């Protein structure tokens, strides 16, 4: 049993510790130096190799695993093994992605960039592009007027009235607050010459109030406020 061993702990001599420290320091210098020299793909294995040597020095002497109960070494070993398993088995996928050609190894973004380069266009930034794709036109008020069908009753680019008044100069007529209010509660102020009690049920009918997000609402208001005519 574990507690049959005599109550004696190994005391690591200062000299050993100092030597190990020296070794670690010099290895640090070495790894920096190595990385300055360009050896192509070799740089990576070298850097990782040195790091491993340093790590094992720390484990063996600083953490005194050398003199410690064997089971602790086993514990550490198992831990390391499973880090390797996690890494390698994930790479079995990511490094061979698309080997059956039923999955593309490149993302659509990458493929587009490659295509653009061929056509001599400056490739657009993937995450920028993709981000807009992710939240369709979340910040584009004009698109929102399409999305929420405002355009079926209002005209935005000419002073022509439809079911509702033209909004091409709404920004100059109303303050953003007023605009927001008249979207949320259309019948508070009804533009003269236009039927009241229409917009609310329509918007409700298509679930506008439940669908629209705060961000979209802001975008919409900003967009409308920006319409100063001409």
């Amino acid at each position, binding site marked *: 049993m*574990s*507690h049959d*061993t*005599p*109550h004696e*702990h190994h*005391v*690591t*001599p*200062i000299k050993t*510790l*100092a030597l*190990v*420290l020296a070794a*670690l*320091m010099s290895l*640090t210098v070495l*790894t*920096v130096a190595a*990385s300055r020299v360009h050896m192509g793909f070799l*740089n*990576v294995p070298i*850097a*990782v190799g*040195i*790091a491993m040597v*340093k*790590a094992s020095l*720390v*484990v063996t*002497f*600083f*953490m005194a695993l050398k003199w*410690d*109960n064997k*089971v*602790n070494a086993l*514990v*550490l070993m*198992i*831990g*390391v093994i*499973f*880090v390797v398993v*996690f*890494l390698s088995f*994930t*790479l079995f996928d*990511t*490094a061979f992605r698309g080997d059956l050609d039923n999955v593309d190894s490149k993302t659509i*973004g*990458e493929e587009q*960039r490659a295509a653009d380069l061929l056509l001599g266009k400056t490739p657009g*930034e*993937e*995450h920028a592009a993709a*981000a807009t794709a992710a939240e369709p036109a979340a910040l584009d008020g004009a698109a929102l007027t399409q999305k929420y069908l405002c355009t079926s009753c209002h005209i935005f680019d000419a002073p022509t009235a439809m079911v509702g008044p033209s909004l091409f100069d709404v920004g100059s007529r109303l303050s953003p607050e007023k605009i927001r209010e008249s979207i949320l509660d259309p019948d508070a102020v009804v533009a003269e010459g236009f039927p009241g009690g229409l917009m609310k049920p329509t918007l409700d009918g298509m679930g506008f109030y439940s669908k629209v997000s705060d961000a979209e609402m802001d975008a919409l208001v900003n967009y409308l406020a920006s319409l100063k005519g001409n």
Partner: protein
Amino acid sequence: MATSTTTAQVDSNHPTHLQHHFVSSEQQFDASKMGMWLFLITELLLFSGMFVAYTVFRVWHPEVFDHSADLLDWRLGGLNTLVLLASSFTVALGIHYIQIGNKKATVVNLIITIVCAAIFMTIKYHEYTGKFEHGIFPGGHFHPHEAFAQYNVPYAAQFFSVYFVMTGIHGFHVLVGMGLLTWLTIRTARGDFSPEYYTPIELTGLYWHLVDIIWVFLFPLLYLI
């Protein structure tokens, strides 16, 4: 770990730090230490997630990662490495001295360790702020300013996500370590520890060395290659 006795009666011939359900101090020490090692491998696997993410994206975009690494100052990184190694050394010394019953030396070494940790964090702080100033943020918020336009390439964002998350979590561990070390310094000064009983120092030491080891890998992976 456990230091004071629980409700159970303590036989007169038992040291106060020995808990009732252990047979001997030795058994208690072994148990605590094994527990600590198990905890350390959980830490290892926690970080492994980040290392996997790093490797996957590096394998996919080696050139980008290579390129982006230039934005990190290897001098600061290297300096931090040396500082942490030194702190590991002093912790080891601290344990050495308590083992031979030299409490004063232990206290001194623990304090040096804390100072090293503080230096490490300060340097880290400067690196972070330096990045933020130039619009270098993780992931979606990655919009480097003109000066660094040439670094604004696809997947550079991933590199800096990995950088900030890894060093961030590591930094958090350093802070926790500083807390523990301070607590230990006080207790050692108070004379709670002796060559017979110094488990908390031993365990915190192990923890601190692990934090050091993690950095030993982070440094080359992020700053150098």
